């Protein structure tokens, strides 16, 4: 199994190379000159040219690329033009809100989506089922950032029970941190919860018709044992796929949600850097996010092997 994981890890290298090339090209063909932005309106052309030279922006594009790639390969993402610190440091500072937001949203969607799907399937065609499906249909269709705006409108502007925007770090005040992340996590996670509920329901309905469930019931097992031992493990596999996809999707969605709730996360950093033309930060942050994204997908694939003995045996 470890050679399998190693092989998959090596397969990530070409993917990340493509990511690097795409990011570099996109950033460098973009209009706008960071040197001119940095020098300000009053600067003489000579001063701008000097800055361009200092930043290495006057080199041919392929040379800038090869310098960046060799630096990244050594673990050096470069220095921010504007923040006066290494990119890796800016990323580290901004990681906590994004990470916690994604994690909370994922936990929320699993805790709500999976039980809702199971209950809906067990009470098929009852009002519980119908209600769950209606809510999940709405949940899939409502854009997360608008849900966030509605929550702010209701709980911060009208009821004044939760802060509309802002952030305190977990280390500083764990409870306050949770209060700041409550609405963002809910608005970000609802869509995944809805999708998860629909997938769990439909695979549960399939599993309940299987022969082995009937056999388990026929030999007199208690219903709870039939569910926990025989039905649920088989629902886990499609569920895991959706959870894996959601984790990646939530990471992307966090970028927009951070804007809505003014959270100082990596997504905000990317959007701010795009506006400032801070090339090293855009490149580093996008590369880091894409790296985490493919790693999450890898972890999901490994999780299949752990959960599903058939994949395990097939792989050997």
């Amino acid at each position, binding site marked *: 199994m470890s050679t399998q994981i190693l092989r998959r890890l090596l397969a990530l290298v*070409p*993917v*990340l*190379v*493509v*990511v690097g*090339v*795409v*990011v570099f090209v*996109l*950033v460098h*063909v*973009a*209009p706008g000159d960071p040197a001119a932005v940095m020098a300000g309106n009053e600067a003489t052309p000579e001063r701008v040219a000097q800055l361009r030279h200092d930043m290495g922006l006057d080199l041919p594009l392929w040379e800038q690329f090869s310098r960046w790639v060799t630096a990244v390969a050594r673990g050096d993402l470069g220095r921010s033009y504007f923040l006066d610190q290494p990119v890796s440091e800016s990323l580290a500072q901004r990681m906590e809100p994004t990470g916690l937001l994604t994690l909370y949203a994922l936990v929320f969607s699993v805790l709500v989506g999976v039980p809702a799907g199971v209950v809906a399937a067990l009470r098929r065609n009852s009002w519980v089922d119908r209600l769950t499906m209606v809510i999940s*249909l*709405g949940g*899939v*269709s*409502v*854009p997360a*950032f*608008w849900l966030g*705006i*509605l929550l*702010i*409108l209701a709980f911060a*502007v009208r009821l004044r029970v939760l802060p509309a925007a802002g952030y305190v770090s977990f280390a500083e005040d764990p409870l306050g941190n949770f209060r700041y992340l409550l609405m963002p996590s809910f608005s970000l996670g609802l869509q995944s919860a809805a*999708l998860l509920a*629909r*997938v769990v329901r*439909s*695979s549960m309905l*399939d599993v309940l018709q299987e022969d082995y469930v009937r056999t388990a019931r026929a030999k007199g097992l208690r219903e709870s044992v039939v569910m926990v031992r025989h039905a649920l493990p088989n629902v886990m596999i*499609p569920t895991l796929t959706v959870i894996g996809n959601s984790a*990646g*999707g939530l*990471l*992307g*969605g966090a*970028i*927009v949600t951070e*804007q*809505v709730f003014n959270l100082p996360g990596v997504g905000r950093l*990317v*959007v701010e850097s*795009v506006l400032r033309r801070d090339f090293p930060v*855009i490149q580093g942050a*996008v590369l880091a*996010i*894409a790296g985490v*994204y*493919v790693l999450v997908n890898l972890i999901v694939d490994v999780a299949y092997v752990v959960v599903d003995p058939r994949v395990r045996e097939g792989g050997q």
Partner: protein
Amino acid sequence: MIVLENLLLRVFPLASSRSSKWHWTWILCRDSGAVVGGFILVVVVIAGIVGPYLTGWDVLKVDPANRLLPPSSSHWLGTDGFGRDVLTRTLFAARISLFVGMATMVGSTVLGTVVGLVAGYFRAVDGPVMRVMDGFMAFPSILLAIAIMASLGPRTENVIVALTIVYLPRIARLVRGQVLVVRQLLYVEAARVLGADDWRIVIRHTLPNCLSPLIVQGSFTFAFAVISEASLSYLGAGVPPELPTWGGMLHEGVPVMGAAWWMSVFPGVAIAITVLSLNQLGDGLRDALDPRIQRL
């Protein structure tokens, strides 16, 4: 529904030879969700086309005396920070959202199909092409769209280009998977034995088998594109801010949320209705066209 049926018959001639003309209508109507979804979508399209002329207000005309008015009999959904009618702008914005969604769907489907067919059928290019596609899929979709928009600049065409690039790899992967299955089948082998060249096999024998998943995927791509366009416009990285878009209107509404809740609510309702109808249509098409795919 008749229009849709004719469309399906045209793009899916196999079906017409196999079953009666009414077969499709019947399959689609059996699922009431798809009918409701299709109907709401048609209503949204018509509202976007004729709606802005019926409200009696101008989309762009600024009227500072009447700024931030709450919903009333003259301004049904209130006015925005420049005194413009929110209803008129919400209706007008449907044009841009639907146009971007439709163009993205067509663009990514056509290009993705070409890439998928080439990768699936011609094995020599499969590896490199699909690695590049994997690379594009390694970005969270909205992040890639933001990065592309940053380099192309805020224009409606560029939003379409960006979202097409984002969704193209997903379509390509779908078509490639389908081709890999189909090329093993006996009738493809038979066609080759009969002397058909590669292009004939790809176009006449492989492509028709990809159509039903493509049609289903198309409606979901449309829905994703509507949400993505709104997100980009909300972030200020989408359609130019002069044009009314749902995302852009929400962006303008946030700073005055406490004084004018209607600006933060109604454009979002429009997005939700449009996306809901597309999702319903997609679910219905999936059940009708491909019963083997598990229903979500």
